[in-house]
């Protein structure tokens, strides 16, 4: 099972935090800080795995990958394959790229909701749902269209201004 997905920038600021089991907010912040400390101490061109036993309990692993200014982090247990997680991370980034056209950190900063929406199409409750970025992008487009249509039909403030 996937335990969590985190995006941190190279300054240690979290850009996305999603745990699939409840974690209190201060615990989340603490975990992000400890993960960042580990990640920024690692050299380039080394393996993408970090042992996370001390943070999350036995048999939990952490895989990360750097994309431009961002660290993408997946936390998972032994019922996931390590290399498959790297592939899934690639799927996630590809999807972001499709949805935002040349994704950069700012897109993720300003599209908190959409990033969550994308992630929810890929992973649900810690289970991998969809591994084709094409499919995910289509689903996200459909939802965005639905929201746009709905918004244009329903007045935002009922009453006088329309």
């Amino acid at each position, binding site marked *: *099972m996937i335990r969590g997905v985190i995006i941190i920038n190279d300054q240690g*600021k*979290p*850009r*996305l*935090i*999603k745990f*699939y089991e*409840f974690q*209190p*907010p*201060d615990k*989340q912040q603490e975990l992000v800080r400890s993960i960042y400390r580990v990640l920024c101490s*690692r*050299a380039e*061109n*080394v*393996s*993408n*795995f*970090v*042992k996370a036993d001390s943070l999350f*309990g*036995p*048999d939990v692993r952490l895989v990360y990958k750097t994309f431009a200014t961002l660290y993408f982090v997946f936390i998972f*247990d*032994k*019922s996931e*394959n*390590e*290399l*498959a997680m*790297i*592939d899934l991370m690639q799927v996630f980034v590809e999807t972001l790229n499709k949805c935002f056209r040349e994704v950069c950190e700012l897109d993720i*900063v*300003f599209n*908190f*909701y959409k990033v*969550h*929406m994308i992630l*929810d199409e890929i992973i*649900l*409750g*810690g*289970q*991998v*749902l*969809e*591994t084709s970025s094409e499919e995910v992008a289509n*689903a996200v487009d*459909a*939802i965005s269209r*639905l*929201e746009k249509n*709905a*918004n244009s039909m*329903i007045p*935002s*403030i*009922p009453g006088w201004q329309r």
Partner: protein
Amino acid sequence: MTGPSLMDSLFQRSIDDLIKALRLTPPGTEAAFVAKAIEEIRREIRSTDPHTKASALQKLTYLHSLHGLDMSWAAFHSVELSSAAAHSHKRTAYLSAALSFNPATTDVILLLTHQLRKDLSSPNVHDVSLALSTLSSICNSDLARDLTPELFTLLSSSKVTVRKKAIATVLRVFEQYPDAVRVCFKRVVENLENSDMGILSAVVGLFCELTENEPRSYLPLAPEFYKILVDCKNNWVLIKVLKIFAKLAPLEPRLGKRVVEPICEIMKTMGAKSLVFECVRTILTSLSEYDSAVKLAVNKVREFLSEDDPNLKYLGLQALAIVAQKDILAVVENKDLVVKALSDSDVNIRFEALRLVMCMVSEDNVMEICRILISHALKSDPEFCNEILGFILLTCGRNYYEVVFDFDWYVLFLGEMARVPHCQKGDEIATQLIDIGMRVKDARSQLVNVTRELVIDPALLGNPFMHAVLSAAAWVSGEYIKLSRNPFEIIEALLQPRTSLLSPSVRAIYIHSAFKVLMFCVYSYLKLNGEESSLPSTLTDSELVSDVELDDHNMIVTNGQAPSASSITHHLTQESLLALVNLVEINLGPLAGSNEVEVLERSTNVLGLIKLIKPMLLGSLNDCEGDQTKGELKASETVKMIFDSCSEDLGPVSVNAQEKVPIPDGLVLKENLDDLEEICGDIKLPVLTSFSLVRPQFAETSNSAECQGKDESELSTGSTSLLAEHRKRHGLYYLSPGNTVTTSNDYPPAHDPKDMAIDEDEDLAKLTEKSLLTGKKPSQSKPRPVVVRFDDGEVTNAATNRTEIKAGLISGAVNEVLLGDEATTSSSSRRKPPKSRRAAEDSNVSITEYKSDASKIDQSEHSKAGLGGSKHNGHGKERRRRSSGKDKEHDRKDKHKSDSAAYGKHRSRHRADKAVEAQAPVIPDFLL
């Protein structure tokens, strides 16, 4: 606070505005800004306008998720907004719920039940998806119970997205509400035959999670999984199926036989590294009895190790670590690559490689491996260097130096390790130096050589990390001074000026060791004199000689070490001894004014001794007879006694020794001793050395030596009785009466028949091995020296440690708890396979019948074993509903039972409308 006005709604900041403003906030003022924003949000969120409310909730969720702000106060607003008509508002509400609700404590979750039910049955796919993903995040037992019917409907939804999301959600629902299994399981299983990869992937993923906890219950599904393994070409699905088989195969040997072929086939033909690695792992963990498959897997591992990709290298090393537990040869075959990985730039890889290298250590290669490792340690960064040293010490010290055959080599190696520039393992090295000194008699002469090198090197004193090693070295030098070639040199080293750099406690050990060396020199001198001029009275020739012989018998062992006394004879003249005494006096004189008690105490002891012996030495130097003779005699007698007390052999003390001491009658251990301080306030208690291995009587005997200077005749007898008493106490307190006294007090005599037997066995083993292995070190052909060890305490202690570690792992996560339960339950259901086979043989049964039989048996066995408690499912339902969160674990234990029971029930009930009968012939012979 007034409610939000229209103006608030009109000029409300959107989430984008908030993020922008937050980014522009100068560092340091962020908290104030966020507090202000929260105040704003608190006002806006009360709005009746869904748009305003949604905006406020959006902002709040953002601050909660990324800035760690508490939003539990707003839980009700999320519930309220979830009923909004607009999908985007609904999404906002559900996301805030998913990110902030705590399933265990947020009570408004129940208020969401109705809305979730409505959305789960909505015709809009996106609403349903949203509700499912929310449910999987916040599911508690109440939600799971109430929404199970809706979920059941969705499991056969015609829309692929909805169905696969429902399947993924089912896992959480099962976890929270095991009775849902009875309702949904059949539909879940049906999806195993779906041709859509998305659905198949979801359902296989679900089973992968379920088998993780309770694999035995899913054995009946093996045929379905097998079909997927053979037919499916999707990597994601195959990985999960492999994980399932990794759990199932060890439970059913015939299953392993069936799957090993297809798995090898996949490993050979598929290109995806993730899939290949999964095959390798499955074979190595669960199918390790199939040699050809293991061989293939190890070859793949070798390919991984030769790749440039650090991830593959890392995983390859981990796979080897799995093999290492069963078949160390596979690791040895890849030794070259493993050793190469030791110098990788990635610390993970280096660490894994180190672990593997240490797995390979045996008594045949320990020297070679340690040599390789130390050369790596010298090259690597301080952190990894110490990692290596720590591993070497741990491995070589394991189980009383099990792998060390040649202690002379190992002792030298310890000295070498201590000198590695970044070494911070001084404490461990020090412990082993002393431990080997006490346990391995044959190693002592080499030990003395090594410690001599350490002690006389002035450069080492400047390195604080060396101090622990130096203190051990000083102690060894003092304790085994008889084996030293040049005691004068040692005493000079122990008193060299740079010892002022040492910490007081270490310095105290230095001084005390100097005391022991000095004592030895004086005693040897007296003995020589005795031999030459045959002193009268107690110090007769015969006594001395027999004394020394006794000592030699005790101390100096087999390998023909030159007898101590003769080796220093040529140094020992009156002049040289006097010079030595003067040297000590000059060096320690200033320390008598030290403000460190330990140092003060030790140096006063030495000076007291000097005061005692100096007149004697001067007397014989001046050749004055008469008056002096009497004093000299007394002094020499005293010297002998002190020497005797110091030369008693120290053995290791069992960790459990203290527990074995019976508490004497009338001794109240827990009495309050506060007023003792007043009584004893002015009595100077003997200060024990900080080094725990030094016997307490050192302090006391040296005290007595000091006193004897004042009143010799009286105290000489006094000290004897004191010593005798102390021995008695020593015997009483350190060692238990009965058998253990002999084992722990004395070394097993070198020619003890029992030990001989062991040695001969070992020799034999050595010899047979030697005939197989060429180029063995000649030093290993001599018998391994005896390592003193206890059978009792230390072993049991290690055992308890191990169980503690295991317990820690088990309690680590829910998974582990369930695995632990499984270990106990599996024994009760072990008889299942033969029974089910018989059931299947009875008639030409269809798959469904066979399965229901199997699960019925499973169930009945469990109720027999009394694990479940309920015999009927109907009762079980009520009972479970009553059970609170505390019983959750218990419920889960029951779960697998209900899984298969429900499965069987539904299977048989719906048998008619199923087309599975067609496959019937495949199944029975599959498991048979």
